[in-house]
Structure formats: C-alpha cells, structure tokens
C-alpha cells in the first residue's frame, strides 16, 4: 500500500469539528481520545495532528478508520484538512502503530471517574435511549467515556438519518445533561455516509 492508495474523505460537522473517514484502519483497539498534546505522546497520528501549525487542535478521537478532530482556530477545514490528511498518510506509512493502545489502569486501582460515568451512561442508554431510537429502527452504541466525554456510534435507522444531529443534540445530549450532568460532551463517531437504511433519508440536492 502506498500513501496514494489511501482514501480519506472529510466530513465537517461545524467550524470546530470534522470527521475524516480513512480507507485503512488506524486503530483497532476501540476508541482513543486525546485531549492534549501530552496525551498524544506515543501515538504518532495524534501527535502529528496536534502539531499542525495554526490549527489549534484541542481534541483528536480515533476509532477504527475514523478520525474526529476538534480545533479552536479560525482556519477553515479545507486548509486544516489537508494537513490532517498528510498526518494520516504519514502515520500509516510509519513503523509504529498510528495510535498506541489505551493504557491499562494500574493493577488494583479503583474504578476511575470515567468508568463510573460509563456505567451510568450505559444504563441510561439501555433503559431509555435505545428503547426510544428503536422505534425508528435505530440503535446508539456507547463506545467509550473519556474525560467525561461520551463517544457514541449510531446504527440502523439512525446511521445516515437526516435528523441524526437532532437526535444527538436534542435527544441524547439533552438526556445526558438531565440524568448524568457530569458528562461534559457527546461526540458522534458514526460514519453516516455509509448508512444504508436511514429512517429519514435526507435529500441530496
């Protein structure tokens, strides 16, 4: 595989967040979220994205073949996106894994705050969120909780649904705010473009 064989598509969510879907797997060990340059140390992909000049990247989330980048700078995604693409290609071409495995908690350590949150969020998803989206043939998977940020993946009728962002922000996020107020945010790592049976099919003009 050469860097030229790697296909990357960008899916800006807003001026601060953009998903990058890569034709090759970047990280097979679940979700990794990096909220700072320090946390990115040891993961070449995240290191390179945090180092993009002028982008002011504040968060990188990697799961499978999906990279979500959060930035604070006014630089438009089309400009930053090219640098992210170069970082992805370089990381895949390197000798080391693009993303290091998530550090295991120390032996005997008690459950972390994220672990506790995970259990509460998982319970909320099981008891309330998924029964609701199931009415539209959808499913929301809790992927991980890192630094009180919940990472979800939508499936079934939710994947590619024209109203997925409404479900995420006005539904899931609102419920989390109400029932698990310690949660600081929700990140959708779904590849919506691959959704084949969305409940509401958005027009594509």
């Amino acid at each position: 595989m050469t860097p030229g064989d790697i296909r990357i598509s960008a899916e800006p969510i807003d001026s601060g967040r953009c998903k990058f879907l890569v034709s090759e797997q970047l990280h097979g060990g679940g979700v990794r979220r990096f909220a700072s340059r320090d946390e990115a140390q040891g993961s070449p992909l995240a290191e390179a994205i945090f180092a993009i000049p002028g982008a002011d990247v504040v968060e990188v989330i990697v799961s499978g073949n999906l990279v979500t980048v959060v930035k604070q700078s006014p630089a438009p995604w089309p400009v930053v996106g090219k640098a992210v693409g170069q970082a992805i290609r370089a990381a895949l071409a390197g000798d080391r894994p693009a993303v290091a495995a998530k550090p295991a908690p120390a032996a005997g350590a008690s459950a972390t705050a994220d672990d506790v949150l995970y259990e509460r969020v998982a319970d909320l998803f099981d008891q309330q969120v998924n029964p609701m989206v199931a009415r539209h043939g959808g499913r929301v998977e809790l992927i991980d909780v890192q630094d009180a940020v919940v990472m979800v993946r939508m499936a079934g009728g939710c994947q590619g649904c024209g109203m997925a962002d409404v479900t995420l922000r006005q539904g899931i996020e609102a419920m989390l705010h109400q029932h698990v107020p310690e949660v600081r945010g929700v990140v959708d790592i779904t590849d919506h473009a691959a959704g084949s049976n969305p409940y509401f099919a958005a027009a594509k003009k």
Partner: protein
Amino acid sequence: MPRLLLLLPTATYRTAAFVEAARRLGVELTVASERPSTFQAANPTGLMTLDLAHPERAAEQAREFARVYPLAGVVGVDDDTAVVAAAIAGALGVRGNPVAATEAARDKYEQRELLSAARVPVPRFALHRVNEDPRGIAGRVPYPCVVKPLRLSASRGVMRADTPAQFVAAFGRLRRILAEPDVAACGEPARRILVEEFVPGAEIALEGLMVDGGLRVLALFDKPDPLDGPYFEETIYVTPSRLPSDAQRALAICAERAALALGLVQGPVHAELRYNERGAWLIELAARPIGGRCTGALRFGTGDSGLGDGASLEEIILRHALGLPIASLEREVCASGVMMIPVPRPGVLRQVEGVEAARAVPLVDVVDITAHPGETLVPWPEGSRYPGFIFARGPTAEGVEQALRAAHARLRFVFDSTD
C-alpha cells in the same frame, strides 16, 4: 439565552449545519419537524412536532408552545418552511416576513406576476395547465422559450425549446415529471406549467440577507459555464464575481427591487439573475439560503490572516433572526467556488475513481462524493441530485474556477455494467 425555533423538515439535508450553528451561538434551541422525534416526550422544550403543511395551524401550535417557553426567533430552512416561519413570526410578533411574501417567493408564477407588476425585469411568461394540448400553445410561444414547473427546485424539469416541435416534446416531458408521485403530492402547483421567454446572457446567483427591508449582498456568484439549455443543471459557482462593478450594482438593485416587490423584508434571499446588454433580469428569487450544500463555499468575517473566522451563512441567518449582533457580513477575502458535479449519465453507480487525485489539485479544499455505490443517478431534467460537490479557494476567481475544472477532470464515474 434567547430561545430559537428551528423548522427542520425531516427530509432536509441542512440539519447539521443549522443545529451546529445554533450550538455555536449558545442559544436555547427548539427543533420542530412535521413528524415527531422519539425523544420529544423526554425533551419537550427542545423538540416539537408542527403541522408544517398548514402554516396557520403550525403558527397556532407554536403560539401555544411560546406561552410556556417564550420564543425569540424562528427560522425556516427551505421554501416551504420559510412560509411556516413567516406565519409563526407573525403570530409571535418576532422578526420575520409576511406570509404572503414567502408564498409568492415559493410560487414561480405568482412571483412573476408580482415582479412584472412592479416593473422588475422578468422574462415574458404564461401559465398553462398540464392537461392542455401543447400543440395548441406552440404557435403562441416566443422562441426560444423555457418550460418549467412552479415549485420544483434545482432546475428539475426546466427545459428550453427553440421550435414548436421542441416545445411540444418539452411540455410532454415536464408533464410526465409532474406526474411522478413525489411531485404530484404537492397538489395544484404540480398541475401547472410555466412557459417563459429564454433570456440570454450570463447567469449569476446572488446570496443576500434582507435586513429591515434593505438587501445586504453577501455574495455574488458567477456561473462560468453557459446555462443555455436544453437543460439547466448547475455546475460551477465562483465568487467574487468578475462582472464589472456597474453590472454587479445593477444585479443587486434588481434583486432588492424583486425582494421588496414580493414583500420580503427580513432574512435570507437567494436570487438567480441574468445579465445582458439590456441589463439585469430577475429569473427567480427564494426566501431561503442557497441550496445544494453550497453554503459551504461561504464564510464571513475577515481577520488579518485573510481567512474567514468561521462564521457560516447559517450562523449569520440565526443571529439575524434572533436580533443578535453580527460582527461582519463581509465574506472572507479570498475567492471561493463550488462545483456541483454533473451526472455523467443515467445508471447505477458502482464507484467514483480519482477522488484522491482530484483532492490533490492545488486550491481544491474538499471533494465530497455524496452519491453512494448502488445509487441510481438520474440526469436532468428528471433528476435533481448532484452526485457530489467540489470546493476550492484561492487568491483569484480565475484560479478557483480552473482548480474546480481540473479536479472534476480527474474524476471517473464507474457504473454497473448491466446498465
């Protein structure tokens, strides 16, 4: 923070852009659709169902809601919800357009009647029923002419005819399009056909914001590919316009006169105009922002770097609806353009090759293939869905246009061999 009511029909492709813009503003958001969200009971202040097919009923529902949760603004995102938003704005006494103005903007015939009466330059036009015999009309039509539906968007069903024989064929073809279930569902407008003279000249798109009865031009897009028919599939939009400044002024004046003739006083407008030796002509004006995901080509506010500060068109629209301060309505300094990728031929798409090569073209920002493998692509005039979009930015409009063409030339659409 003020509460905004955002009208999002479930079929819209604008959801994420508007919802995320509202989040950036930090406003309280209520999303209304014509079908209930499964979370509505769990979040009754953030989600509601409105009868979007009946604006007066929707306005009554919104007024009931606002008695408990006061609303500071309402925004529709397309032609139909612009009418609903106007009705709600009137019921609540918040910023908005008169209902009649948005209805006129939505209906191509009513729009031409009003514009013609106000002496805004529009093509000569006549309205016909779909069940009329086109052979009886063909002798009275000025050639070249254009046949078009009253409500469809993205130039779906719009055809040029240069001769009576072409007119008869185009009329019959549009009749078949109007009989398709998704179109026939819109009722009476699907039983009428507009026939108008073809106006030659450069076509331009104007993106604007009506502010208290005055037009603020946000962007003027050149369309460098001639739109002379027989079908009117869009391709390239590039801003800033390369037309002379007096032509640009004439186009802005024409668009403002049109908006005011319709009665539009607040909110986004998108106008399609032509410019020739006789001046500016209004082809169509809508009370909504530009479609086709093309808002992605616009960013507002400029800093020392010359880069946009990230204020999207959606954010500008929401701020205006809520009466929040808008730092700048000036578009970023650089040239920007978008190419709506043409449908190369009818068929079931297998894959698109050359995407990476297209992305590698200098100045190209994004190549977004929105068509999926297995999707049936339908060319104009029956179709209205572009298989993807190419965005580019650069120092000059010429360079941006060249980049868009170069990127498009690297794409290859592969269809199922059974087609």
